[in-house]
């Protein structure tokens, strides 16, 4: 039986492995962490349906387990080639093809220091907020309930200043989803979303956006927050331009949520170099062709699944994993 190494045990990796197994190929999942799941482990509920992320995760894990797919955890890949994968401990794993599903890195909000993440209490990222939701406890650092919450979209996305020109796609809808969750949790709180554009491209997204506006009374302000500073009562003062009225705007908030974007993994460079692969300007892996070869690397025998090539939603990631596995299986048949 042909063997394919799937690098990355997140949603894309697991789905690709499952598809490979269904196509009669023997997959081996190599995961850097001690367990599978990747970023999916950190999410609470998924947009736009508010499906618990745990449901999707345990279903994928169950399928992987029941299919008897071999998973190698705690293994970091340092170099790849179509028929060989090198691990950081020096081991070389032989295979017939490689599916790269290493995903993305969350933008480190501390780099945008003007927003005060890591400096002021009550500045959190969207990922932190997911964790709080999962723990069932969202509160200010002093344990009290926030009365006014601001979301800032595009932190680490579409921002030349931090060398992230690309759009991370999922933050807009995540901002809408999280704003609605907070509003449900704190019905008396005012929620403001500061955005540059609202990119509601997916099915049900626009409807959710509208619901957030009309039913949840979430205020959407078009304008990017310039800075956050502490106030004497431990809140945060934020400034922005309300571009739709052409006036500067400021207010103090109890909590500032930064919707952090997706960044290309730092080790993409090393992996690309090891196999002679190309990267796009944003640092993500460049597929062979943007139309006919979206899941294939320029090098035969290497395939891409999920956000390793660009920011994507979970649905898109899972579809692409299937497509990558199919492409790999076809390649092995030939």
């Amino acid at each position, binding site marked *: 039986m042909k063997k394919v190494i799937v690098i990355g045990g997140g949603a894309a990796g697991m789905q690709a492995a499952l598809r490979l197994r269904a196509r009669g190929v023997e997959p081996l999942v190599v995961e850097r962490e001690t367990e599978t799941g990747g970023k999916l482990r950190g999410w609470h509920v998924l947009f736009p349906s508010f499906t618990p992320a745990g449901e999707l995760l345990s279903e994928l894990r169950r399928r992987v387990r029941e299919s008897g797919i071999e998973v190698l955890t705690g293994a970091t890949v340092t170099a790849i080639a179509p028929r060989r994968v090198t691990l950081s401990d020096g081991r070389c794993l032989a295979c017939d093809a490689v599916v790269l599903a290493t995903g993305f890195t969350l933008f480190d909000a501390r780099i945008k220091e003007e927003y005060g993440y890591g400096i002021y209490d009550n500045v959190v990222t969207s990922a932190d907020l997911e964790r709080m939701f999962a723990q069932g406890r969202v509160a200010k650092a002093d344990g009290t309930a926030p009365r006014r919450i601001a979301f800032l979209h595009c932190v680490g996305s579409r921002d030349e200043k931090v060398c992230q020109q690309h759009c991370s796609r999922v933050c807009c809808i995540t901002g809408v989803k999280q704003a609605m969750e907070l509003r449900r949790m704190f019905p008396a709180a*005012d929620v403001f979303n500061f955005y540059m554009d*609202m990119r509601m491209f997916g099915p049900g997204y626009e409807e959710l956006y*509208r619901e957030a506006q009309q039913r949840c009374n979430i*205020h*959407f302000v078009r304008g990017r927050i310039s800075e956050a500073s502490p106030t004497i009562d431990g809140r945060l003062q934020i400034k922005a331009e*309300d571009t739709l*009225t*052409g*006036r500067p*705007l400021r207010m103090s908030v109890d909590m500032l949520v930064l919707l952090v974007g997706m960044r290309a993994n730092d080790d993409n460079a090393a992996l690309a170099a090891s196999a002679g692969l190309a990267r796009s300007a944003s640092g993500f892996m460049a597929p062979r062709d943007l139309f006919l070869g979206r899941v294939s690397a320029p090098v035969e025998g290497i395939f891409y699944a999920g956000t390793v090539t660009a920011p994507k939603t979970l649905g898109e990631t899972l579809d692409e994993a299937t497509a990558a596995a199919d492409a790999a299986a076809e390649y092995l048949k030939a």
Partner: protein
Amino acid sequence: MAIEFGYTISKPRAIDIDRNNLRKSDEILREMPELQTCIGCGSCTAVCTAGNLTSFNFRRVHTLVRRGEYRGAYEEMNKCMLCGKCRLVCPRGINTRGVVLLLKRKLGDF
């Protein structure tokens, strides 16, 4: 006795949400929650019969009102002729004529 310096301290142009009294804006949104669905496309202002003749900008005025900036909004709203073209073009289906009447009622103190 104040000294004349030949200039005064310029008033800030910034919308200060902390200082603005949002009570009226909250009332307005409670009565007309769909106003929040405005995405600022400007169709209403583009077709506006009054806007064709004056600087009246319905979108900007109601956005300012939602931020608690009421000054001058009533006078601006009085430029509206209520012809209803805006309602026919609003992609969000906002009852714009209802909004005009509501704003006039809430802001005109009558």
